[in-house]
């Protein structure tokens, strides 16, 4: 009788693998069919999709804490914010950045097209180099910002946080280019931290340190072709790895496997958000609205408002938003997105920024920085209020007025 039961349960285990929990434990690759989107799946079958790394990420999650990013489920916290932050800033952290939108741009006119699309010319960009890309609408308001990779003479890849095919196509009128959304065919991983080089070496790469900032190179990792770029938004030594979604799981497992020796940990969105704030990076949809989603037109901001003036080159052939940006450059921008440091351990979610009795702006992002041992924040303030260099306060939810020190971005500098 007992044997029967045992036999029965064993045979069930063998035949019904697909009904096992996707969390199969270390070493057992989960069945990708679990979360894969079927070709004929109805749009309403789920509200958020999963990335190609979802099962590997789920495997690492100890908190089961998730968040949505651009319509995808991503891990918010894997173990704890403290542990992950510590790994990221003192050893190395690995994250899934697959929800980013990737657009392949190619063709004879691709350089003039990008010159038209972006606020800065791209002709000087060498192959395998990347640059920060800012897209403005006709009013000179920021639609999106991202990173542009040059992959060949006539081939580029634009990586954005949100999808803007409509605008890219509209701007392509009259240019001989091919435009292709390749988001679904490229998975992204971010490897960051002082030990990132060691992790790559342990994974079999020969000289990762030879890669200069903003540069990219094709490498082989665990037998898989990976485009490795020294890019990212968190500051310090960081890499992004771009590969086929089918290979992503193997690359992730290989990196985590070999990286354990040097303390590599998966890092979730919560810590990535702290890190990007320390690096002074503003995000579309968090710190500012895309010009296409700003219902109140005054919420649409120019690159100058966002202190991205360095990304604008006005004196050249026509580009989207040029005339409006020229006006703004002459008259000065109305707002400025600036950094603040607060002597407060827990400031909640932020609130109005005041100087004296007058409200001069509002906090857009705020986090406790474990390295700086203070709360850091980004705030959008009226440019006219920046005449004063001090006297700023932030009103918390409990009604306290906390002194805030105007601080230059980035908050955290790496040697």
């Amino acid at each position, binding site marked *: 009788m007992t044997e029967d039961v045992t036999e029965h349960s064993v045979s069930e285990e063998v035949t019904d693998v697909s009904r096992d929990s996707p969390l199969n434990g270390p070493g057992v690759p989960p069945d990708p069919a679990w979360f894969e989107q079927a070709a004929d799946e109805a*749009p*309403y079958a789920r*509200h*958020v999709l999963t990335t190609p790394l979802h099962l590997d990420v789920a495997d690492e999650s100890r908190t089961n804490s998730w968040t949505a990013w651009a319509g995808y489920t991503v891990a918010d916290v894997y173990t704890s914010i403290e542990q992950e932050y510590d790994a990221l800033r003192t050893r190395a952290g690995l994250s899934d950045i697959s929800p980013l939108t990737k657009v392949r741009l190619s063709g004879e006119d691709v350089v003039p097209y990008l010159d038209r699309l972006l606020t800065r010319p791209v002709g000087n960009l060498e192959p395998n180099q990347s640059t920060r890309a800012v897209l403005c609408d006709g*009013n000179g308001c920021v639609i999106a910002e991202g990173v542009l990779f040059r992959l060949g003479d006539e081939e580029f890849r634009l990586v954005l946080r949100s*999808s803007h*095919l409509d605008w890219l196509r509209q701007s392509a009128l009259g240019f001989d280019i091919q435009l292709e959304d390749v988001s679904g065919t490229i998975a992204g991983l971010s490897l960051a931290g002082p030990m990132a080089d060691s992790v790559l070496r342990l994974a079999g790469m020969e000289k990762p340190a030879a890669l200069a900032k903003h540069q990219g190179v094709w490498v082989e990792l665990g037998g898989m072709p990976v485009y490795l770029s020294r890019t990212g938004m968190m500051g310090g030594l960081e890499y992004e790895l771009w590969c086929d979604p089918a290979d992503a799981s193997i690359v992730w497992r290989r990196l985590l496997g070999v990286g354990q020796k040097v303390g590599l940990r998966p890092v979730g969105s919560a810590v990535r958000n702290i890190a990007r704030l320390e690096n002074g990076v503003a995000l579309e949809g968090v710190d500012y609205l895309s010009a*296409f*989603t700003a*219902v109140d037109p005054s919420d649409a901001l120019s690159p100058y408002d966002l202190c991205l003036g360095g990304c604008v080159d006005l004196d050249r052939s026509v580009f989207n938003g040029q005339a409006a940006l020229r006006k703004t450059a002459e008259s000065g921008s109305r707002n400025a997105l600036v950094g603040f440091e607060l002597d407060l351990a827990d400031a909640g979610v932020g609130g109005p920024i005041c100087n004296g009795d007058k409200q001069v702006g509002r906090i857009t992002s705020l986090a406790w920085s474990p390295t700086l041992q203070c709360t850091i924040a980004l705030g959008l303030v009226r440019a006219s209020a920046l005449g004063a260099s001090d006297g700023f306060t932030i009103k918390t939810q409990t009604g306290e007025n906390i002194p805030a020190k105007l601080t230059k971005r980035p908050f955290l500098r790496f040697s």
Partner: protein
Amino acid sequence: MDRVDAVIIGAGLNGLTAAARLGGAGLSVLIVERSAQVGGGAAHGQPAPGYSAPPIGFSHGYVPPELIREFDLAREGLQLIRREGGISLFDDGSHVANYANENVMRRELARHSRRDADAWPRFVRDMKRQAELIRQSLLKAQEDPGEWSLSALKQMMSRTKSVLQMEPEALYDLTRFWSLSLDDFLEGYFESPAVRAHLAAPALIGRALGPADPTGAAFLPAQWMTGTTGGAPWRMSPKGGTQALADCLAGVVQARGGDIRFHAEVTDIKMMDKKAAGVILADGEEIDAGIVLSDLDIKRSFLSLFQWSGLPDGFARDVANVRMDGIVARINFALKGLPEINGVASDNPALSGGLMIGGGLHAMERAYEDWLDERPPSAPLLEIAIPTLEDPSLAPEGGHIFAVSAQYIPTELHDGVWSDVRRKALMQTVKDMISHHAHGFEDHIVAEELRLPSDIEDQAGYTRGDPFLGQMSLDQMFFNRPVPGFSGYESPIKNFYVCSASGHPAGLALGAAGANAAQSILGSLKGRRS
């Protein structure tokens, strides 16, 4: 009968909200209603035993939250049901659906065009911008700019100021909205013809316009007043249908001391010193009142209740010139079950928003041309509400109602009358169109009822069967509504007011015109006293 402060002709939603507001201000009010039921066009009937549907009105509508709060309708028992979705079915078997979730909506659009999916946020942004402008004007009496009163001047000034302060870009947007056709406007966003047809169709229902006619775009944002989270907007409808809303309002009127008399048809306005002084009923009874409000349309209010000779110069002509067009036939099908829709899974949440069948924009344009030629259209545009999906109380267990608004049905035909044969032919066209997408649809039918625009005129008293009691076009909106020179609710006859949807904001919000009329009456009473 004792004298009352205000007598209201008609217990439609606007008559009820006017009465509730006046009653709340301490006036004694009496509603006289021709039928045995409150609700007017919003009243429900029984297409078959156990089934409940409005034979004339639409089964949904925007109830301004301000009115819900003012009359405390939620505590009076009114429940609003959120109906998400809406699916346009096309002849090739494809469909476009609305989803409230932004990710899902964009994925749905991406099935038709990746580019359109990314154009969606820009479309939503522009819709929300315009919807807010419309929403803000709903519960404001529109002052006549020609009337040089302080309040009219103030409103004109603030409107001019807000236009002058607009960024040029916003002004272009406003101009685009008020001038472009639906087709041209949507082409500025979407490349897929199916997506354009899907978004255009709801903005056409009830309006004597084709998709290629200028000014059609102006009513696209009306659907966006209810709310959205970044996906498609949803519709709110009262649980128990619009009848429940009417009953609820009637309760408020009575609680505020108001009275409702049924089976009382008003035939004349009692005049005294060229001022309205009460009403005269069909049986000859006279009811004296300080103020008379009419919940009838503008033409009935003036042209059938007054001696034309008593109206000021040219006013009768201006009223006669108000464009009222019947264009919608209402058809209710009582069904014993929900038929299967081709290509649409029965668990698709967008079904609650109903179906739209009308082919592409070209097909709609052809149907519109048929209407212009006064021919029954070979393929009308069908908006099918399925209220029973979210509110099963409207039908027996398992049963459903298809409440069809068939657009582009002429009031009169160029070559004769709507004979029984022609009515049957129209019904068959509609059934065939539905059956094309839902095989075996006819086997589900328990009962059916058809109200042509002319039936709507006979039964509800809407002139020519116009569902909006005056076409909602730019020349007949805001301070031009209902008649240029008599914007708002006052009339050239002292103490006589029009509180029906012939006044601003027409069909954009249920009960708003009545509440606004009451507000302007209370305003002028205050002025008189002080």
